[in-house]
């Protein structure tokens, strides 16, 4: 644990003291971060292999399926810094430092959240991630609407997660502990009353809003659209997964007997959301908003997969979350490269880019195909497993999931075709070519995704 928490903390000091003669601050700290990511790969795999939650500090540990999330966090944060290079280039050095410190504290809190074994610790860190994210959105966003978006983000999350705190404290009163290591051995709760059902909802709604479930998702497109690129990336790639991770943890351990009946409406709502947000995507003209709604749609599948509570559903949700983390983050980066050149998020203004940025089109192509879950990409593995477990739960879900998959393919292709193919509008002829930095960024997003094809059981968790 300390092996990567300590370097993360050191990055604070690093950002503050560094002398940036030869390398920009940004690159130094992203290099540092990549090293943390490497340590983390090493460490998490080691832990997953030999320790399996045993020889660790009682407050922090890594469960078999959780190295993935810590790894995703540590992998994405350097990428966030690289992607913000252009955004931060004109800022004074002190603000760059502040920015990097915010990202560092975000990484710190996320690692702690993903490795907490005490539910209150998890809750604290879950909430603690709000603050750096809020700052990133509202301080470094571009439009004036970012303030509104920050409000939405904060209040949606807090209003749903404060009941979670009370629910956790009630659980502690009943069982006497909130440690996940102990909770699994405690007696199953006797949940029968109406208040217990409310308690069940209190435990899950925080995560469902964070995911977000369709209906409670309005904060997400706003936050995504207004956030700077790093904010969008971390939001789509890791923060949404915090919700999924929390659900996986809670639902298996403590909510067991009630979830069978009570999760019906939520599954239906999630699948309905897959179709609805997909349809919204089809008529989007705002590139970032399209990607944000596509995240909502994918997360709907994840919610469905988790709530049916079968091993396949869980594994599928895990795979889809990891794959979607990389894919959506890559798409946001691509949208940002467009934005940096064209200064608009509008799809109609940025058409036919294949003519001027041909290599970028390749990345767009891979990312769009990953988004629509082309075989053999890990996205497809996740979707297939979720779909299978949902069909097993009720064949009627096929109507919704099938339509959802179809629509996902349509809007992904719509996005690709609209931005890349076709004749080049005249106002785009004088575009800058894409930089090595952007290619590096895209390669670091998409190559791991492609490499996962060859060793998928790294992210399969339960079944393999």
């Amino acid at each position, binding site marked *: 644990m300390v092996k990567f928490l300590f370097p993360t903390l050191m990055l604070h000091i690093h950002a503050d003291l560094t002398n940036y003669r*030869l*390398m*920009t601050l*940004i*690159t130094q700290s*992203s*290099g540092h971060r*990549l*090293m943390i*990511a*490497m340590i983390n*790969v*090493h460490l998490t*795999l080691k832990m*997953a*292999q030999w320790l399996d939650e045993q020889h660790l500090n009682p407050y922090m540990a890594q469960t078999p399926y959780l190295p993935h999330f810590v790894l995703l966090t540590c992998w994405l944060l*350097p990428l966030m810094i*690289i992607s913000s*290079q*252009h955004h931060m*280039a004109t800022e004074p050095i002190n603000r760059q430092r502040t920015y990097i410190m915010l990202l560092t504290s975000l990484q710190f809190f996320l690692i702690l959240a993903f490795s907490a074994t005490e539910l209150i610790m998890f809750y604290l860190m879950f909430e603690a991630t709000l603050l750096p994210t809020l700052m990133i959105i509202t301080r470094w966003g571009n439009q004036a609407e970012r303030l509104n978006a920050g409000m939405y983000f904060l209040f949606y999350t807090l209003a749903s997660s404060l009941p979670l705190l009370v629910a956790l404290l009630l659980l502690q009163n009943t069982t006497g502990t909130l440690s996940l290591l102990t909770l699994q051995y405690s007696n199953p709760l006797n949940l029968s009353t109406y208040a217990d059902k409310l308690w069940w909802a209190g435990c899950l709604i925080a995560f469902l809003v964070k995911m977000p479930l369709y209906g409670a998702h309005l904060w997400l497109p706003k936050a995504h659209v207004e956030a700077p690129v790093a904010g969008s990336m971390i939001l789509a790639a890791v923060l949404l997964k915090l919700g999924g991770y929390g659900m996986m943890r809670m639902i298996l351990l403590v909510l067991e007997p009630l979830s069978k009946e009570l999760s019906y409406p939520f599954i239906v709502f999630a699948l309905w959301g897959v179709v609805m947000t997909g349809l919204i995507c089809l008529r989007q003209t705002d590139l970032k908003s399209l990607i944000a709604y596509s995240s909502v749609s994918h997360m709907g599948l994840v919610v469905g997969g988790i709530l049916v509570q079968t091993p396949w559903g869980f594994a599928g949700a895990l795979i889809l979350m990891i794959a979607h983390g990389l894919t959506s983050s890559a798409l946001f980066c691509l949208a940002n490269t467009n934005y940096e050149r064209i*200064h608009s998020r509008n799809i*109609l203004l940025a058409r*036919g880019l294949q003519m001027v940025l041909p290599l970028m089109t390749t990345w767009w192509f891979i990312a769009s195909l990953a988004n629509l879950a082309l075989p053999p990409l890990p996205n497809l593995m996740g979707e297939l497993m979720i779909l299978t477990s949902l069909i097993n739960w009720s064949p009627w879900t096929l109507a919704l999931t099938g339509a959802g998959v179809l629509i996902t393919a349509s809007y992904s292709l719509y996005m690709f075709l609209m931005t890349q193919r*076709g*004749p*080049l*509008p*005249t*106002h785009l*002829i*004088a575009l*800058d*070519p894409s*930089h*090595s*930095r*952007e290619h*590096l960024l895209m*390669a*670091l997003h998409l*190559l*791991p995704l492609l*490499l996962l094809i060859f*060793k998928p*059981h*790294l992210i399969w968790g339960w079944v*393999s």
Partner: protein
Amino acid sequence: MLTRLPRLGLSLPRLLRNHPVRFVSQSKPSGAAGVAAVTELHPPAEKSDHGEVSPYVKNPDYHGFSDDPVVDEWNMRVGFFFGISVALVIGGAFIHYLPDHGMREWARREAERVIVQREQEGVPLLSEYYYDPNKIVVPGSGEE
């Protein structure tokens, strides 16, 4: 819900009508002559309409990291070295040669071997008893 239906109905024909307009290019037909004409209309990169000076004017090998060419070059090298060489290549090799986690691969190989063996012997793939019941010695009830 019902009140929305007429709205949707009204908007459908409009959507259908607009689509061709959206998808068909509004620019002049492409071709050498057309492009040349358009390029004349637009000044070259260093005077784009946003008032930005393209970094490629100053540094043709611009990598997107910094305005200073030396810093830019070094940053690119460091980024690619750590990102691609160390993280992806060495990391990938490391992961590939990791020992079998939780004996999963061994279990799979073993299962396949057992299946082939049982098929050859003609016994059912799964036997009813995991242990041979004759070999299990149950302690007598009298010794307490």
